């Protein structure tokens, strides 16, 4: 009964959050696909995007009035692009500095995992040192208001922008992976990297590209998340873990699975709160994950992009 009463009011924020989880989850899943590595430092790529967006918006808006019309759109695009680029730069450097030397030495899997965690710690503490440990607010880029209502639930400008931007980026990614030569390279390395290299695919380049693509989406997600809430040096931790869970939920290594998993996790988290105390928000997400994995150990859509590791 509690579910049906205000279902739509909880569904809308759930979808918004789910889209953000999905964007981050793609970064985990792409890297896992080509390297069978859980890149725990991806949450810091997300955080970098948030800070890049913050600084761009502060420079653009300053302390002036809330922009509107075409100005809002261009600022928003500038924020997304800048944060995506910075996310990509950090992801690229991460691969170069932290993972490539290990690959060259054929390091065991566990070393990658420890390196990933170390890189994550380094990055968020660096951000705390450089940008301060207080939360920061991205200035308003548009006037938020109600656009329309569905079944009594209000849909706001902010939610439409986040969902719209996320869906557009996910569609673009799907096209890149499935229709372009770059995507074919990624899929080839994911399926069998040895054979791919024998067929003339430059594995190192493909891996770099994969990190950059994941970084673009993660950085942009960091900015969108920042406009929705606040920017903070530890902002990547929880969303990062949740997005990782979402990637596993959908089937790690599977891009569409990550999108579905993220969306599902966001919705479950939000809707479940109509029935329970908010203390359970993080518990619910992981109970769902465990339940799904009990019946479908490879996730909802299965591990399609890579071999099962």
């Amino acid at each position, binding site marked *: 009964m509690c579910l049906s*009463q*205000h279902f739509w*009011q*909880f569904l809308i*924020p*759930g979808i*918004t*959050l789910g889209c953000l989880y999905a964007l981050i989850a793609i970064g985990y899943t792409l890297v896992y696909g080509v390297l069978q590595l859980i890149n*725990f430092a991806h949450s810091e790529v997300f955080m970098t995007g948030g800070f890049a967006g913050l600084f761009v918006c502060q420079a653009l808006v300053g302390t002036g009035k809330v922009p509107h019309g075409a100005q809002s759109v261009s600022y928003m695009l500038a924020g997304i692009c800048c944060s995506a680029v910075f996310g990509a730069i950090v992801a690229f450097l991460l691969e170069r500095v932290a993972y490539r030397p290990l690959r060259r030495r054929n390091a065991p899997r566990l070393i990658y*995992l420890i390196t990933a*965690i170390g890189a*994550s*710690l380094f990055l*968020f*503490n660096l951000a*705390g040192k450089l940008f301060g*440990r*207080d*939360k*920061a*607010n991205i*200035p*308003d880029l548009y006037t*938020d208001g*109600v656009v329309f209502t569905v079944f009594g639930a*209000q849909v*706001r400008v*902010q*939610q439409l922008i986040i969902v719209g931007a996320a869906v557009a980026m996910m569609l673009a990614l799907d096209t890149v992976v499935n229709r372009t030569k770059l995507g074919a390279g990624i899929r080839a390395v994911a399926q069998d990297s040895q054979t791919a290299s024998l067929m003339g695919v430059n594995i190192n380049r493909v891996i770099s590209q994969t990190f950059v693509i994941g970084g673009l989406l993660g950085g942009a997600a960091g900015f969108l*998340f920042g406009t*929705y*809430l*606040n920017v*903070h040096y530890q*902002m990547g*931790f*929880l*969303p990062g*873990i949740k997005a*990782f*869970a979402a990637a596993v939920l959908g089937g790690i290594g599977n891009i569409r699975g990550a999108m579905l998993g993220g969306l599902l996790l966001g919705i479950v*988290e*939000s809707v479940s*709160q*109509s029935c329970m*105390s*908010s*203390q359970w*928000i*993080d518990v619910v997400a*992981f109970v769902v*994950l465990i339940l799904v994995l009990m019946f479908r150990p490879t996730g909802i859509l299965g591990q399609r992009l890579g071999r099962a590791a």
Partner: protein
Amino acid sequence: MHKKTVIAAAPILIGTLALASCSSSKSSSSSSSGGNKPGYTIGFQGPLTGPNAQLGINIDNAVKLAVAQANASGSLPFTLKVAEADDQGDPAKGPTAAQQLIGNSNVVGVVGPTFSGATKAAEPLFAQANLASVSASATNSTLTDPANGFKTFFRIVPPDSAQGTSAADYMAKVLKAKSVYLIDDKSDYGVGLCGNIKAQLGTDGVQVTGDSVAAGTNDYSAVATKVANSGTQALYYCGYYADAAPLAKAMKNTPYTGKTLSDDGTNDPKFIALAGAASEGWQFTCPCLSAAAATDATTMKFVTDYTASANQPPGTYSPEGYDVANTLITVMKPLGTNVTRAGVAEGLKTVDYKGLTKQIKFQPNGEVTEKAIYVYQVQNGKITELGTVDKLIAG
């Protein structure tokens, strides 16, 4: 503060996170000059880094100012220094920070700890060392319970029980709310305060709905939706500004039209900076005096001096921090060149000092005798004083 929500799926990350956020502490001394005078140190314990650092910084700056002024006045038989111990407002780091001050044998009195949770964790150590700690901000009601044995703990702010009763009466009698939604942040402070409010609202015949959301939660949209759907007439958040700000943002995204209130932990310009336009109209109850809203000459001079020395205007609990430091100095002065920890702890029991915020006099349990609760509201992006609860109820 900053209790991370622990997720069973990632024990490794959590372990490493705990490592990473290990406390950093620094020690600074204000300049002192003066021939053969003995040197004593006033300790400060509170968050200087971390998400709620501003409240600690507000007090720390005031302490430094008070000490600098006392040294400059030339009337002290000793020279004073300040030693800072950063506990990040985290109960887990409270004892370590306290130990830093206790280990420094020059420290004869402590301003702080700042947050209730950290105070609870640190106070047994101070009691053992017979080192007096006078908090300008720790308001959890149970701290002065004699059963705790915190014999060297004093505070110059009224406890949450006083704030809780007043906040409840304010919502029931001034705002005339028939129903109130309480959210706490699961901290010692938040849970204690919301419990006190709930009890008094029950007495006032107001319908109460309660919820708790752990501090550090990122997304408050579902909670906000719940509040809006409940049809409540007032929302009261028991917690600190770092979490109240995202809650305020989420509330603005709902059709909720009732009153929004919070406590002294949220009553800070940082709340407005973080929540932006969403902070407009929020009201705060606070056992604190807002320096910004003051009109008397002494307080205005304090604002000028503070702004000059700290490079920022005084915030919440800055005047209280200044008062605590001056109370300690007042107690130390008659002890001359033989200031001991025991002497300071003993002297605080009988001190009677006119501070900026109130007449400072302690009851045997360490509570200050004067207990006024003020109400503030964000109006046009600024925190404005509405008056004391007692006056507002009287009309």
